[in-house]
């Protein structure tokens, strides 16, 4: 460990991802409030970022409007490739959301301490990612103004949606997920909003914040109820981490398309989702801790611990890739064999190798502790993983459809500017929400960080032997 760069404000034991994680450079509640709430002040750079996000969003809105007016033909669809960038991007964003819930709910239940400082950002990311993902099934359908026909609502035609269709399951999965993760995020925010309310001087904002904090009074009774509600919601969200992406994977697994029709998809998708979600958390958190001066909150220990999660999920995903190939060969179904060959060595080799490189090979670098604790590398890797995971969905959606059972209809697929416009627009939409969020609400859970910081009156008492 002698070669490790050890900043002065870092704790000594780098490898503990447990509840007794330390923030040695954070010493008082005031420091927490002051440092984290100071982020809320907008800066020029922030306005610049927002402008870029809005420009991307504008491009997306224009593309969508044009597509609705002209028809889906302006996108790159090339039958039988009837699903393309939109479904890929849908799955991509749903996947992103999963890490947030994993961090905020499952890791909460497991008392994994490294989640404390990153969970708020991750949970917000979840909500915005699901909000983004939820748009894509609507963007993708031919008559988006009829999307509500997928929702079971009472109507005089006495028609229900087809509950056999995985797309209807999707509707339930996504709406449930959005509801629960929003609630979870909001409930976690209540004590923090109360802090904002108390510091607010503008009467209208104060009123609003008071409303949003449900009139939080910081009483013992409120804290007790809050803790139970939070625990309950964490428990409630936990199965969703597994179920939502399983349901999304059924969109493919329930089809009889070679390359889709496989039982490995649910676990494979869930692992992939968490993998991609952590990458997106890095993409957001690593610049944030630098720009907002939060390195002593999100410490290298935290990144190290999350890198292990990424490494683990990468191994799971890589294993799933290999199992897919094995089963295609072992299953003896010529359509599947032909498809997998075409995927990796034929028409789509480049996409498959982008996927394998980004998701399977590059993350192996995380076996090195040095790289796990190198934020610059983690950031670069996170971009690779984001690209790789987008291509994973591309490889699942496009090559399967383009190389289906009937060879006469085999085809290719090239997206058009409308596809790219909506893909870029989705990032604009996501980052617009995220940037607005950062300047309105605390990006780190004040209350939970204060739990780690030694209380004032106990300052004389040394909490840990190491200090």
């Amino acid at each position, binding site marked *: 460990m002698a070669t490790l760069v050890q900043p002065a404000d870092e704790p000594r034991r780098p490898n503990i991802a447990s509840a007794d994680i330390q923030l040695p450079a954070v010493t008082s509640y005031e420091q927490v409030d002051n440092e984290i709430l100071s982020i809320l002040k907008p800066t020029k750079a922030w306005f610049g970022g927002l402008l870029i996000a809005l420009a991307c969003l504008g491009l997306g809105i224009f593309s969508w409007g044009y597509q609705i007016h002209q028809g*889906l033909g302006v996108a790159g669809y090339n039958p039988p490739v009837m699903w393309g960038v939109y479904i890929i991007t849908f799955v991509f964003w749903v996947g992103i959301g999963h890490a947030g819930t994993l961090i905020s709910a499952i890791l909460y239940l497991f008392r994994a301490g490294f989640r404390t400082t990153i969970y708020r950002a991750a949970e917000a990311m979840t909500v915005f990612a699901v909000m983004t993902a939820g748009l894509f099934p609507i963007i993708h359908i031919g008559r988006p103004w009829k999307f509500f026909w997928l929702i079971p609502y009472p109507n005089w035609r006495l028609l229900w949606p087809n509950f056999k269709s995985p*797309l209807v399951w999707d509707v339930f999965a996504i709406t449930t997920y959005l509801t629960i993760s929003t609630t979870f995020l909001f409930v976690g925010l209540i004590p923090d909003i109360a802090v904002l309310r108390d510091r607010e001087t503008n009467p209208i904002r104060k009123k609003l914040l008071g409303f949003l904090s449900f009139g939080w009074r910081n009483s013992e009774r409120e804290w007790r109820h809050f803790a139970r509600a939070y625990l309950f919601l964490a428990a409630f969200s936990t199965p969703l981490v597994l179920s939502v992406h399983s349901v999304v994977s059924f969109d493919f697994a329930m089809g009889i398309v070679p390359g889709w029709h496989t039982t490995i998809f649910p676990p494979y998708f869930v692992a992939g989702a968490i993998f991609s979600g952590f990458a997106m958390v890095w993409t957001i958190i690593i610049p944030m801790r630098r720009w907002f001066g939060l390195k002593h909150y999100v410490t290298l220990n935290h990144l190290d611990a999350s890198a292990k999660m990424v490494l683990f999920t990468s191994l799971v995903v890589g294993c799933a890739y290999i199992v897919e190939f094995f089963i295609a060969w072992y299953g003896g179904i010529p359509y599947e064999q032909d498809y997998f060959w075409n995927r990796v060595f034929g028409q789509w080799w480049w996409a498959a190798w982008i996927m394998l490189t980004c998701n399977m090979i590059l993350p192996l670098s995380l076996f090195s502790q040095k790289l796990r604790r190198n934020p610059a590398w983690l950031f670069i890797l996170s971009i690779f993983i984001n690209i790789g995971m987008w291509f994973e969905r591309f490889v699942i959606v496009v090559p399967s459809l383009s190389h289906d059972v009937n060879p006469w209809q085999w085809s290719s697929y090239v997206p058009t500017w409308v596809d790219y416009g909506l893909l870029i627009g989705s990032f604009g939409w996501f980052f617009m929400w995220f940037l607005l969020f950062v300047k309105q609400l605390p990006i780190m859970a004040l209350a939970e960080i204060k739990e780690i910081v030694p209380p004032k009156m106990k300052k004389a008492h040394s909490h840990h032997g190491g200090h």
Partner: protein
Amino acid sequence: MTPDTTEATQGTEERAAVKRREFLKVLGVSTAATAAVGCGTGEVEKLIPYLVSPDNTVPGVSNYYATTCRECSAGCGLIVEVRDGRAIKAEGNPAHPVNRGALCARGQSSLQGLYNPDRFRGPMKREGGSLVATTWDDAIGILAQKLGEVKSRRAGAAFINQHEQGSFPALIDQILSGYGIPAHLSYDAEAPVATAQANRAAYGASWPHHEFSAADLIVSFSADFLDGWGVPVPQQLAFAEARGKVEGAPRFIYVGARRSLTGLNADQWIPARAGSELAIVNALLGRGSLAAAAEQAGVGVALLEGLQAEIRNAEASAVIAGGYTPNAGELATAVAELNRQRGSIGKTIFPDRALTAFDGVASLAEVRALTQRMNAGSLELVMVRGANPAYTTPPSLGFAAAFAKVPFKVAFSSIPDETTALCDLILPDHHGLESWGDAEPVRGLLSLQQPTMDPVFDSRSTADVLLAVAKSDPQLAQRFRAADYRAWLAERLGGNANLRTALTSAITRGSAATRTASTARVAPAPAAAGTGDYQLITYLSPTLGDGRGANKPWLQELPDPVTKTLWQTVVEMHGETAIALGVEDGDHVTVTTDAGSITAPAFVYIGIRPDTIAIALGRGQGEAAGRYAIAGENAYKLGAVTEDARSGAAVYGATRARVARANGSERIVTIEGSGRQHGRNIAQATTIAALLAGENEVKHHHFDGQASTDFLPGLRSPVANDAQGEFGVKDSKDKGQYDPEHWSGAAKRRWAMTVDLAKCTGCSACVTACYAENNIPTVGASWQGAQILPDRTGFGANITRSREMAWIRLERYWELDREPKDVKFDADHPDFETRFIPMMCQHCGNAPCEPVCPVYATYHAPNGLNVQVYNRCVGTRYCSNNCPYKVRYYNWFGYGDPSRTQYAFPEPLHWQLNPDVTVRQKGIMEKCTFCVQRIKEAENRVALEGRDLEPDEFTTACAQACPSRAIIFGDAADENWSVAKWAKDRRAYHVFQELNTYTAVVYLQKVNHPAPAASANA
């Protein structure tokens, strides 16, 4: 959590309290804000009833008119369905002896000629260099004046008519002679003039009937009788009937440099160089050695020895000569001699049952003579009707330039083209479906033609115009007393009453007025060999003919049955040639002959000799020919003025050409994904020997441990329990409405279809029939793609993204173990097998598309139909993803919306739309419905008549049109329907049976007839 982590939260009760009332207010406002619902109130439209209903017209009920097809010279019988005064569908007349109810793609498309958006709206005259609209009185006055001048000054004049049978040519000649004008020129660029003339000399009939089913061997020397050459429908009927016999069906050998559709249907291909067929036939006749012939033909001598042996051993053979080579006439004569030698006349070839299609047709030499006279300035007036010689003659002939020199040109054509663009007066004729007329397709039999609807535009029958002009001339008025052409025809048939009676079937005994025989004998132009390394074959397109189909989007969108390209002209070459030239599919090549050159994308085609290239004629017309006809390149530019040595017929066959790589490349517009089956048993075949021995194996994949995919419930819709296969509960009573015994009777019928691949030739008539019946939009026009920043432009741009909408398509598979471009040409073993299979919605009993639709837009009807509810579809396209047959089609743009550039039915093409079928809007999925509108119509009709459906009482559009009679539709649950019997044929199989889809479409294996020696060895 510790309770003291927030500070200074005491005493905030007043500030922070949320009152319940306030909370509800906020909730209410936000709910109302999000509950903005858009309920469109659409435009209110009015229905106006007839005050006085026209006779015989019941709104919503079709009338049917029997008439005669005028799309080519054959003279097939039509039944035209007319709804509310508009012709909406053309079908073959089952009572007609020529086509027996079948109809080819071009015949189907006559409707798009009728409703062509580029048709002349009314008479026009040239004023100040451009054509302007005028009145009929004015136009007829001008014509009468000009004809009067010609008559009085004895000036030279000529009339060129699109070659046709019947009384009209005789009428023209009578009127022309009244003005001192010689008999008209009956021109048809498609007519195999050389062959017809040689036949007339040899058999005494220009187009003898071939009874293929009486033969046990058919040999075609470049006679593309399944490609639209000659009289397409009767030839195809005869061929498919013969092949459909299976047992005792004839073996078929094709000799020709390019394997046309006819060649692809042959059991054996002998790729003889174009023009060398004559040497082969002569050798077979004993006038020369086979070795020399093989040398000249560029094929292995063993192939010709085999051919000789087979012809010798055949008990009954039918040898046909064709081609448009300079020695086509000589070839036909030699083949006739061979047939005579083999005793085939009266056995397989019947001159006494000849078709009259090409009697009296003019040769290119006569057109050339006319051109010379025009150039010499000896003609003051030239009239043209229907024919388009300015496009269909080689530009090197200089017809257009010579025509332009004529002082006054009159066009009677109903559709503008290159020739009418040069004319000074346009007197648009009615379309064939608006006209009176007759044809005599077989001697002694009149096929009548009657208007099926009021004229779409302000056109006027040319016969009526000429009669009116003649009546305005005092000397002629006596001779032409008939009020109009109808009266003239009625007179010939012995009165109005006779005409009315005859019109019910439009067929009557009798003969057309005899025309003046063409007396002009013109010496043919000497054949020029030309220079270049390659032999060039320009062939008449099976879909567009000589180009007259090019202004019809259905035909442009109909893939060529061989190359599967559409909306595009390609240069066909062998893979070896492509390698030699250093090009791949789509790379531009320039083809140059002594006459001219064109640049078009290269296209690798396995069925062509490496020393030969081929280009289809018919595309690349001028702006004048309308918005669709400009697609592609004009291969006529490559034609030299070469004529058949005997008859002076146009030569398309054999010119030398140079080929060079040109700059640029483009995507091949094709519907073909992979042209090979990759072992997937889609189009299956067996050999006749295996079939007779009961060894034909119906192939499908079976995986260990998989439940049996044998069809437990037969063809009826399986209930959930059935679909479990051998894992199902055998004695389950839980079958619901899908049980045939259910009290509702909903599952009493199982609509099903059989397709006999032994009969199917791949002609694709079913495809166009489906377009016509089901309002399928064509999507290949250059303006039908994305409008802002289109990533692909030009004709066929949508199709390069596989967005064609054909509910039924003809898949064409090469039986090869490698890509066709990698196949080397072997002059000794050049053969390869091709299989055609029509693919449409299989109406699976256990359909993969149904469970995945989130909104029940597709569901299973108890009668076996897989139903698509357009109005319920939101367009997730999951159904298409899950369809193994890939037969679902999506509306990418607003093809059905008149306000859009992508609109597929510009005024008045939309008059053709079938009112029984929805025009689909953008964003929804569509597919073959088994013509559910026809099923419902039949069921409603029998319900009104209080009876049950007769077996085979009605059929689908594809089955109705099929000139091979390969498609049978009906109720598979009722033993009396033909489909029930065919579905149990020993050759029956289901495509992708292993996927457990329980399809309602049953294919019957193709039957190959290998060479006798080969099958003995095998």
